[in-house]
């Protein structure tokens, strides 16, 4: 297959030029400037990509695909459809399924489902502790053999600091990244939105920023003490970012990701009590959002990940206090990244690195680049199209997006995974 005359942007190789890509047997064979002569390609598929932008396939290192156990919210197949439609070719799926992915049989079950779906690459994260109960370490080594790429009790913190210490050491033993959900549950208590003037006004119980920050501080201290890496997921506050910046400056092996919704929305989105904007961590203040945007520019933030968290309409229709936390995001991850480029003045190369080469390096997986010899995971977008998110275009089983009705610039036209076209925009 050939992709012809596209603007090719690959942060992994710092490439940004107009040219052609040659794909053979699921791998990138060559990437060349347009001036290079085109060989005879009569028998090969050619995508005419004039005016289009071509990126390495997007990696989403934080998603909940809900299978096994919560198939009424989402399953591996519908999650794969959503990913493909969003230009995401690699999805790391979290372990809080039912049963929890804390042993190799569950890992294998998910991977079998992914193969059946046959669309994008699904890489499971295993649980840190058995049953995500924070008490006994899970079978990280056996799960790694079965195919996990990281460990996380996401949805919950590992509360016991001594277990957290052992978990970091044990994960490092197997070369697995530990993805930490930072939340002091005693402090966040019954909270459902960011604690502050607005929560007091709306009469909703608040989640203090400190509930996140004390755990971020704890994790960086334990990481420093053990010299084991830790990855802080869905960072949402200015204070957390400050702690991470200082830790990085001291050489502590800490990395972090933020979500598109924390970058593009703030707590004022909750004025109408829209449960689609209820998530953990909660949308924070305008000042926090600004700090996160600055964190992108300064490079403290390593990754943007969706925290795709599908919930059924019946669940989100409940009272704000009792509706579950979470928003879907697989289809809006890349559009959000493009918005950061178009509307916030961030370099395309820079924002793309946060969803391609950076997560690939952190997880130690292949992909995330267009380097010859790599997996042929490629996302092609039309940068000139404006489109508005509506429920009928959402491929997930659940429709709980805080971006419904929002207009984005830049539309996915092709998603190629492992050399196969897994998504093609209607009419193309």
């Amino acid at each position: 297959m050939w992709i012809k005359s596209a603007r090719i942007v690959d942060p992994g190789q710092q490439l940004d030029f107009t040219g052609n890509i040659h794909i053979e047997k699921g791998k990138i064979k060559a990437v060349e400037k347009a001036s290079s002569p085109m060989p005879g390609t009569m028998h090969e598929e050619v995508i005419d990509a004039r005016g289009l932008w071509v990126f390495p396939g997007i990696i989403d290192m934080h998603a909940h695909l809900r299978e096994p156990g919560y198939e009424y919210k989402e399953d591996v197949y519908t999650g794969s459809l959503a990913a493909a439609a969003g230009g995401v070719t690699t999805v790391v799926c979290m372990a809080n399924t039912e049963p929890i992915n804390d042993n190799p049989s569950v890992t294998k079950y998910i991977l079998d489902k992914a193969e059946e779906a046959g669309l994008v690459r699904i890489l499971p994260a295993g649980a840190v502790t058995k049953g995500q109960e924070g008490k006994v370490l899970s079978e990280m080594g056996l799960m790694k053999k079965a195919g996990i790429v990281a460990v996380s009790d996401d949805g919950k913190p590992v509360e016991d600091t001594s277990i957290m210490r052992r978990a970091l050491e044990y994960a490092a033993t197997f070369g697995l990244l530990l993805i930490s959900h930072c939340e002091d549950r005693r402090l966040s208590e019954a909270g459902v939105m960011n604690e502050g003037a607005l929560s007091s006004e709306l009469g909703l119980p608040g989640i203090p920023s400190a509930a996140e920050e004390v755990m971020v501080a704890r994790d960086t201290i334990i990481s420093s003490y053990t010299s084991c890496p830790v990855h802080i997921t869905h960072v949402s506050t200015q204070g957390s970012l400050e702690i991470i910046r200082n830790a990085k400056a001291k050489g502590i092996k800490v990395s972090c990701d933020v979500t598109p919704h924390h970058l593009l929305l703030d707590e004022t989105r909750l004025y109408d009590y829209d449960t689609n904007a209820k998530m953990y961590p909660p949308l924070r203040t305008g000042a926090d959002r600004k700090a996160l945007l600055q964190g992108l520019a300064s490079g403290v933030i390593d990754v943007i990940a969706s925290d795709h968290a599908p919930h059924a309409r019946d669940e989100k229709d409940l009272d704000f206090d009792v509706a579950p936390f979470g928003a879907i995001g697989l289809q809006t991850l890349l559009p959000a990244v493009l918005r950061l480029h178009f509307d916030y003045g961030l370099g395309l190369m820079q924002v793309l690195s946060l969803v391609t080469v950076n997560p690939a390096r952190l997880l130690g997986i292949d992909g995330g680049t267009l380097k010859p010899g790599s997996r042929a995971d490629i996302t092609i977008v039309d940068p000139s199209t404006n489109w508005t998110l509506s429920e009928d275009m959402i491929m997930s089983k659940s429709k709980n997006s805080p971006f419904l009705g929002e207009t984005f610039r830049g539309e996915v036209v092709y998603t190629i995974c492992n050399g196969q076209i897994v998504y093609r925009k209607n009419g193309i």
Partner: protein
Amino acid sequence: MIWNHKDLISIQNLEREEIENILEMATSFKEISTREIKKVPTLRGKTVVLLFYEPSTRTKLSFEIAAKRLSADTVSLSVSGSSFEKGETIMDATRNVMAMAPDCIIIRYPYAGTPERLGKALPCSVINAGDGFHEHPTQALLDMYSIKERFGRLDGLNIAIVGDIMHSRVARSNVYGMKKLGAKVVLVAPRTLLPVGVEAWGVEVSSDFDPIIPDMDIIMMLRVQRERMKQCFFSDEREYTVFYGLDMPRIKKMKPDAIIMHPGPFNRGVEITGDIAYSPRSVIFRQVENGVAVRMTLLYLYLGGAHVD
């Protein structure tokens, strides 16, 4: 008067002029309750549904009497706990109620925001009778009415609201309303019972009750819930009473014409001593009486000919 609101969810959404109109109209509705036949045909044929998902004595009774004095039919439904605990969404629950074709739903709910969402989803009027820690607009209106009845105005008055501000929807609605009508509000509570970000409300905040007492025209005491003790918002009732309870020595420091209010129900011996509730300074029972008149006014505005779409 043309009334442009379908729902009454919060005092925040009312203009000063609208609040003043309500308070003015309430006086003529109050007169109806003094007649021998306490009933007018204004809302004949209208159906009012009272949905109370939290226990209530005064508010529910008050709304029901108000509706009946205007000849509306009332249906009342008391549910303990939220619809969620019964396994259905609030939308499911109200869809059943909608089958009765009500003209108005009066709802009290344990969680903030649900009345607002219902109002947006349903064609009939929704009146918020208290939602979570959010707002209790009709209580604030009757409180303001009672103040105006005594002082003739709110402009320039000094009002202290004392107690569990954090968990009080009454405090929120009153702060918004009283400020709109030109009063100066001081919130008094231990730091643990003050909402985070309270500075943004444009009020004075103090944790020291005694020094402000001589300047106040109105002291409104809020109910302190005993379960807050276990949640570590304060130590015990004995200590709370010493610092934030209204007793005789404190009453003696009040201005000669200053009054005491309480939205009820009160905890005798905690935030207020029993004898004080019945003292001449207390307008606590006037508040209840005025509640009927204010709610008649609101039902008239939201259900009567004054409403335009």
